[in-house]
């Protein structure tokens, strides 16, 4: 069993962490390296669909009973995290209700790529996870955003909730994740084999290219980090750790293995940079995008990728005493 330090340094040398670093360095060196928009879009479609498909195949093998408690735990996390984020941002951070809600929406939702990174980490460490974790990604994505938007509007005029929720539930990431899961579950392991070379075999390699682009983009926001102020910087590191531990506790209470509890912790710790920004930009146009994009992309995402994942795994091991 590797020590926490071993696990951390092993994680830092994984191809995906290094690819993110390469992208960030390329931006800092003002390289002309650019990932075509169409490639970025294609890779994100691929990754979401692959997560869904693999989850669906695994789900088909799971008994419905196993998944009820973890699902409820995930929903509770999705509903609760934006509430305390909002309160902290309002009281301690002194942000207006709109900006506070906007930031809370991001930290209440999840990042599918962070999910993939923790899966990769655990696989490499030989720690098994429950097969149905991908379903929790889909469950955790939307509620946090909806709750945060409701908080923003708590004192304001009516908003078109039906339309906002419809847009969230039919957004690209939900359609691909849930659609992929249904396809995976219906076609089953046998029929899935023919598409495995693409959706399993290529996964890690294509993730490397995706993280290269995320590094390029995140580094463009590095110079804004100062502008968002020390409170948000601290928030962007402290909250993931806090959410990670809470998530690991909730996962353990819901009966998940140490691997599953780690994944749920990391999901809670992660902040959305696809679904939440799109929803928040439309629903809360007055919020300042720099206040949510910079912490999420330039701090929380790389922090989780490099440090948060091994840390939360360590927390889960301590919690479960293994």
């Amino acid at each position, binding site marked *: 069993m590797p020590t926490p330090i071993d696990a951390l340094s092993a994680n830092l040398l994984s191809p995906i962490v290094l690819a993110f670093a390469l992208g960030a360095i390329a931006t800092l060196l003002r390289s002309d390296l650019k990932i075509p928009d169409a490639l970025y879009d294609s890779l994100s479609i691929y990754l979401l669909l692959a997560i869904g498909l693999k989850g669906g195949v695994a789900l088909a093998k799971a008994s419905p009973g196993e998944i009820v408690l973890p699902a409820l735990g995930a929903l509770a996390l999705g509903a609760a995290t934006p509430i305390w984020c909002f309160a902290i941002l309002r009281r301690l951070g002194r942000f207006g209700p709109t900006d506070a809600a906007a930031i809370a929406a991001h930290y209440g939702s999840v990042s599918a790529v962070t999910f993939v990174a923790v899966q990769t980490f655990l696989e490499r460490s030989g720690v098994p996870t429950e097969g149905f974790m991908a379903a929790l990604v889909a469950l955790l994505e939307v509620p946090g955003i909806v709750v945060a938007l409701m908080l923003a509007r708590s004192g304001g005029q009516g908003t078109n909730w039906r339309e906002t929720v419809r847009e969230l539930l039919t957004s690209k990431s939900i359609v691909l994740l849930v659609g992929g899961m249904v396809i995976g579950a219906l076609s089953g392991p046998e029929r899935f084999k023919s598409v495995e070379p693409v959706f399993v075999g290529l996964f890690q390699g294509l993730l490397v290219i995706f993280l290269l682009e995320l590094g390029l983009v995140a580094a463009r926001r590095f110079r804004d980090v100062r502008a968002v102020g020390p409170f948000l910087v601290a928030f962007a590191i402290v909250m993931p750790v806090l959410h990670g531990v809470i998530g690991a506790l909730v996962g353990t209470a819901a009966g998940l293995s140490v691997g599953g509890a780690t994944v749920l912790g990391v999901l809670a710790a992660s902040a959305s940079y696809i679904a939440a*920004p799109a929803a928040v*930009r*439309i629903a809360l*146009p007055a919020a*300042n995008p720099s206040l949510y994009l910079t912490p999420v992309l330039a701090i929380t995402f790389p922090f989780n990728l490099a440090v948060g994942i091994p840390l939360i795994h360590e927390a889960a091991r301590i919690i479960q005493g293994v």
Partner: protein
Amino acid sequence: METVQRRKVTIVAESILEDRLLGELRALGASGFTVMDVRGEGSRGRRTMDLGGRNIRVEVVAGVALAEAILAHVADHYFEHFAVIAWVDDVEVVRGDKYA
């Protein structure tokens, strides 16, 4: 070739607004529009999103009244909070009746 004068409104907007904006153009009575993917910089700089957050550029050829209505709509609904700009100019078209 006999031509008639029409107005052309050009809107540059965050691409996330595409569906909403095009719906509003239809509702305002535009008989058509042309959309292209662009990128840009402006006074609101990187306030637009990095990921999936590019700009679109929409052109609408229209009569004077509709052009005015579109411009007013965009100014009222988008200028404050969104990275959106718009301009109008004159164009000559062949079949003027085609454009509301």
